[in-house]
């Protein structure tokens, strides 16, 4: 039987040291069978702890231990079937200034178009993608394979037996999606986009 506070501490520590998203079940498995329900609640508590916005709104009774009030630079994001601790996107300018980093490589529009086609219609072959975009995707597919956004998922049983491509877990992480179901629906894009933006902020 583990104390609730101890549970939360353990969960926070694990999230802190893990660089990959950790599935909630794996976090819960650290604790005894009997504690699993409590563990789930503890995970939620840690997620909410980091979700507290800067400016100390709401968390009124909290001033005492110095935990609330101050702005948060990190948050727990739900992505690719797990949770992970990362910096809030708004911190980017500060981090770049501190670590003296310039520009990270962004996917080209051609790459994102091809990626979108694969994401929504997977598995897809290169000829099928070419059909949709009217542009040969071969160079772009190579980039996407190298960036680990897509993977080869077998061959299609048609003439030429072309490779089939699917998106990867890295794709989900890159775009902050919990799963493929989380992709913005093709028809309600504007709505979904607002949601995705809100989730990050």
């Amino acid at each position, binding site marked *: 039987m583990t104390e609730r506070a101890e549970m939360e501490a353990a969960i926070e520590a694990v999230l*802190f*040291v*893990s*660089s*990959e998203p950790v599935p909630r079940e794996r976090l819960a498995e650290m604790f005894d069978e009997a504690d699993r329900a409590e563990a789930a609640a503890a995970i939620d508590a840690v997620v909410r702890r980091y979700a507290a916005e800067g400016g100390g709104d709401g968390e009124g009774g909290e001033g005492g231990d110095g935990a609330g009030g101050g702005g948060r630079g990190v948050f727990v*994001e739900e992505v690719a079937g797990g949770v*992970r*601790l*990362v*910096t*809030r*996107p*708004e*911190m*980017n300018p500060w*981090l770049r200034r501190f670590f003296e980093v310039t520009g*990270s490589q*962004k*996917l080209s*529009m*051609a790459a*994102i*178009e091809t*990626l*979108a*086609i694969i*994401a*929504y219609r997977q598995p897809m072959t290169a000829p099928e993608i070419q059909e*949709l*975009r*009217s*542009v*040969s995707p071969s160079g772009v597919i190579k980039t996407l*394979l*190298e960036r*680990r956004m897509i*993977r*080869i998922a077998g061959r299609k049983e048609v003439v030429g037996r072309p490779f089939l491509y699917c998106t*990867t*877990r*890295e794709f989900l992480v*890159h*775009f*902050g999606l919990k799963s493929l179901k989380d*992709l*913005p629906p*093709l*028809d309600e*894009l504007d709505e*979904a*986009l607002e949601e*995705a*933006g809100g989730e*990050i902020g």
Partner: protein
Amino acid sequence: MNTPVPTRGLLPEAWRVDLPVFEGPLDLLLQLVKVNKVEITDIPVATICDQFHAYLALAEELDLDLAAEYIYEAALLIHLKSRMLLPRTPRAPGEPEEDPREELVARLLEYRRLKEAAQSLAEIESLRRGIWRREGGPPEDLGAPAEEAGEIDLGDLSLYDLLGALRGVLVRYDKAHPPAYHLDREHFSVRDQVHRLLAELDRGRPFDLVADLRARSCRAEVIAAFLAVLELARLSLVRVHQTEAGDVVLYRTTREAAGEELEALAG
């Protein structure tokens, strides 16, 4: 049929100053639909076709390296334009007549949907580019697996990784074991080269050795051919002569090759 020479005057004012670059012919078509303020479902084919060609002409003038797909699409458009001029045959009594634009419309609508999806992904990406992960991996002294460069989660391992790994191994192996030419003899035997050279020489034309060696497909074949020349010279079947210009010329001697001499050559 006569296609009018497209002029840049057909293009929107802004494009004449700063020609935009598109993701492909469908992207260009979508933009033309937009600047002309027409519906995708009711495209004025002649106008759009002329503007498409005007864009291509201007792009060529500006040395923009457009992919062949643009040319293909341009041809499709001309074909469509001509079909628009033909009388249409009704599909069946009572049904609406066929619209030759149907296929183009379907492609454009589909592409527009995916383009919108791509744009929303791009926006998500630019929001998320500001997210940083913690530096350094999990602590190994606590039983966390050691992190090393290049390691991949088994769940994420793909055929592409496997191929890359195999290529890496082979490149390193080749570097550590420079190919000795005897390995290549399987493909390019000295004997074959002797026969080839004799056949060439028997045509009676002056034979430029350097040019011939240059025409070989790979280093292994060059080596085999060169060894063949040495063998032929040793057997007095050819004479090697260097001209004043520096060319190396082979001449066939009058001696006839004995079958067993050639058979004895390295296979």
